[in-house]
């Protein structure tokens, strides 16, 4: 009984006078109390006297919603205070130690904690170098071919998609936009090859908005299927500059680390001509972050050797790779090198493929 009384005394007095000191739902938990007291003693000591929580008390046991809410808020406040106190203490310690202080801890981010992918490419890897020397893009990288891109859409495109295609055509030098008119892709491809195109880009549309892209490298190259999202056309851009000129842009490819990422990077690089014209000061960026590829198109200017200003022109969109298929477009009988399986990545949210 003593135990129970103790708890009653230490019960939290509520600030509001209207609330009577609570009749605790203690009686049912009497048994638990004894064992719990010792464990939670230190906590007791820390808590300020006014709002000392009886150790075994859990906020969720209060039946009255208002009071429960109040108690929860108080609990949160206390925790926050404790956290601030801890921080201050640490800071003091660090200042006291001065130079000898241990280095600041780096906060954990998803990028830091990324599960190591065994297909990460080591720059000196011979096998990879050999593969890249003999894959479908080797013709481009050996400067045998110049890129020539055919951009088209799915059937009956709406205005937004058409405008997007036109803007893409200005961004990619030597790109031609053609209307689809119900043609079958498999029939289009041999014609493209005959006319010397190196890339076929099909923008798929759903509900008047572009939402997918099929990028097919032509002679016999891989076909990548992407999900397109967050498309911003040029007039929706804030603070954009004038229209892009005809100069070939530079290409920046960021964060393509794995084998798959590497082949993606080559895929994007082969869209643009070999020699960027630095006079134009335009740069197209494909930045991979957590399997999302962000495309941006900027104009840059070097103010001095330490500073550069960039101004965004051109459309922006994000891609997410859905599947990579060897050979040209053949969805039924093609050989898929990689397919996005959602449940694989649902298991661990720190695992990425690109």
């Amino acid at each position: 009984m003593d135990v129970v009384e103790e708890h009653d005394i230490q019960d939290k007095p509520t600030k509001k006078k209207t609330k009577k000191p609570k009749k605790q739902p203690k009686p049912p938990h009497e048994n638990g109390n004894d064992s719990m007291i010792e464990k939670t003693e230190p906590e007791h000591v820390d808590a300020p006297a006014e709002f000392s929580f009886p150790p075994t008390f859990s906020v969720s046991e209060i039946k009255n919603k208002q009071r429960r809410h109040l108690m929860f808020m108080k609990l949160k406040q206390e925790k926050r205070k404790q956290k601030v106190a801890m921080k201050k203490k640490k800071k003091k310690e660090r200042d006291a130690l001065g130079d000898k202080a241990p280095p600041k801890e780096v906060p954990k981010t998803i990028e830091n904690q990324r599960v190591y992918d065994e297909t990460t490419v080591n720059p000196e890897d011979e096998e990879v170098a050999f593969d890249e020397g003999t894959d479908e893009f080797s013709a481009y990288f050996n400067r045998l071919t110049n890129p020539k891109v055919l951009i088209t859409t799915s059937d009956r495109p709406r205005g937004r998609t058409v405008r997007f295609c036109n803007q893409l055509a200005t961004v990619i030098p030597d790109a031609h936009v053609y209307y689809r008119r119900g043609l079958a892709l498999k029939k289009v491809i041999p014609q493209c090859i005959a006319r010397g195109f190196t890339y076929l880009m099909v923008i798929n549309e759903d509900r008047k908005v572009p939402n997918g892209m099929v990028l097919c490298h032509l002679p016999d190259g891989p076909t990548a299927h992407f999900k397109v999202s967050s498309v911003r056309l040029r007039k929706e851009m804030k603070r954009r500059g004038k229209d892009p000129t005809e100069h070939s842009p530079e290409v920046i490819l960021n964060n393509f680390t794995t084998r798959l990422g590497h082949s993606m990077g080559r895929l994007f690089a082969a869209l643009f001509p070999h020699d960027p014209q630095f006079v134009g000061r335009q740069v197209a960026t494909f930045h991979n972050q957590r399997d999302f590829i962000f495309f941006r198109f900027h104009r840059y200017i070097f103010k001095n050797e330490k500073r550069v200003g960039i101004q965004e022109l051109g459309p922006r969109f994000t891609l997410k790779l859905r599947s990579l298929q060897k050979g040209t477009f053949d969805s039924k009988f093609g050989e898929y090198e990689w397919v996005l399986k959602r449940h694989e990545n649902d298991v661990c949210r720190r695992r990425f493929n690109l």
Partner: protein
Amino acid sequence: MQHDDVIWDVIGNRAFCSFKVKTKVQNFCRNEYNITGLCNRSSCPLANSQYATIREEKGQCFLYMKVIERAAFPARMWEKVKLSKNYEKALEQIDQNLIYWPRFIRHKCKQRFTKITQYLIRIRKLTLKRQRKLVPLSRKVEAREKRKEEKALIAAQLDNAIEKELLERLKQGTYGDIYNFPIHAFDKALEHQDEESETDSEEEEDDEDVGKKEFVAEDEIEESDLSDFEDMDNLKAGSDEHEESSEEDESEEEMEEEPEASGSKGKMPLKGAVFRKKRAYVEIEYEQEMEPVPKSKAT
């Protein structure tokens, strides 16, 4: 006995018919043996003891006939004749089977048969063309992906990454001699010794930059972003509007404070850049109304 008229009177006009679908303008008949699909005295299969229809099953057309002799045997009531796949032959078959039948039914049967063959042809043509495959989206999954994308965008810090990359490339010399900035590493190492060469290179810079376009602000400002420029324009525009309104006030109230007011506002565009460094503050000017000069009445 089959009393067609009575039946029609009941189901067509007065009481309920479970096959009837009423719309504002018209009545339809949902009976599967109905030849026209409308609810009429001549089209109702229940109210006509002699009736014929064309029906289609899996691409095959059949002629169904009902005669009054079999009215008592519901299981055998409808006679089913398979029609040939050849359009003309099928029409002849219809004619042969429905010889001596009322003109209306013969005509409607042939019409229906024509329509059916047309839509069968269309089906066959469409299946040869590309078909749209509808992939169902899961709302939860899409929302999750969207959120992940937003987070990834924030984590990417694209502008910084791009700027860093460009500076890297500049350092490594991929741009060659286009930008003649002194290489930072060298300068750092030889800071004390090479002050002269630094000034030289600066002069060179000036010479080389003659033909080039550069974005230059009116005034010296800390150029953290080019984005500042737009805001500056807005600021200027704001101050212009302010000036106009003050002028209007001037004309109305004829205050001596006008020159001061316009003067101070006139300074704003010049100070604009410096202005922005300080915190934004509001300039409040109090304009006092003079008492209206009492007009003396001429007496």
